[in-house]
């Protein structure tokens, strides 16, 4: 359902308030880019987002508020991306790629499943404290970009954009079990990277 904020913004958009369009783009463009990136990859993602924005403008008066504004925008983005690439319908790529600092894999455990190398205490252990370090912020951005395409998108949509798993499934047309696998792999790689950062001070 559309929120009160959505309705307020929508009113201003329909009235042609340029500042409202600025707010719309500022608030939602990165989520839209994550959706486009999941479907068409890096090379065409920006193009798809631009297409989607124009489509949003053309269809704004038809937005009925049955979903949130965000879900509506992300669905338009996914449709723009899929229309463009109808011919080569993508398979969900669950193939995994190694990450620079690895992941939390079998090597961390003994044969009976106990930790061989247990997690250690971090210097900073709250989000705000971690984010005060510029190098770590950059390192996180870098890590998100270095993940395989779908892992990156799904993690960004889940964590950074706060989408529910079901919303991610619906927008990207991926099964729940695949979304769960993708998120888990992505999180473990981010975990390994931050652990490496806490240990060495380097990304």
């Amino acid at each position: 359902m559309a929120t009160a904020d959505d309705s307020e913004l929508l009113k201003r958009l329909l009235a042609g308030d340029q500042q409202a369009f600025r707010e719309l783009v500022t608030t939602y463009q990165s989520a839209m880019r994550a959706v486009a990136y999941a479907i068409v990859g890096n090379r065409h993602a920006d193009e798809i987002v631009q297409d989607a924005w124009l489509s949003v403008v053309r269809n704004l008066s038809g937005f009925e508020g049955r979903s949130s504004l965000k879900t509506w925008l992300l669905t338009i983005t996914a449709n723009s991306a899929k229309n463009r690439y109808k011919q080569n319908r993508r398979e969900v790529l669950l193939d995994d790629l190694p990450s620079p600092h690895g992941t939390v894999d079998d090597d961390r455990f003994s044969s009976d499943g106990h930790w061989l190398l247990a997690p250690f205490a971090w210097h900073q252990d709250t989000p705000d404290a971690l984010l005060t370090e510029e190098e770590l912020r950059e390192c996180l951005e870098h890590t998100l970009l270095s993940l395989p395409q779908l892992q990156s998108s799904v993690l960004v949509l889940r964590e950074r954009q706060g989408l529910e798993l079901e919303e991610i499934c619906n927008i990207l047309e991926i099964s729940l079990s695949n979304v769960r696998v993708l998120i888990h792999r992505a999180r473990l790689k981010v975990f390994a990277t931050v652990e490496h950062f806490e240990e060495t001070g380097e990304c």
Partner: protein
Amino acid sequence: MLSCKQQVARSSDYLDGQLSFRQRLLVRHHLLFCPNCRRFIKQMRVLSATLRKLPEPPPADLEQTVEWMMRERSR
């Protein structure tokens, strides 16, 4: 009882509320007795919250995009 490795394998599903009641109890039971895994889960939670708060730069092409949208609107 779950092993640490099994607990780690279920950690995202645990955090996302995707486990069955029984599975969730198994994880909770393991966490009760395993300080290493308690630390792991706590750090996983911190990372989720950190990614949520990671500041996003404003879109680089903001003004251009808004201009296109205004133009499209007046068509």
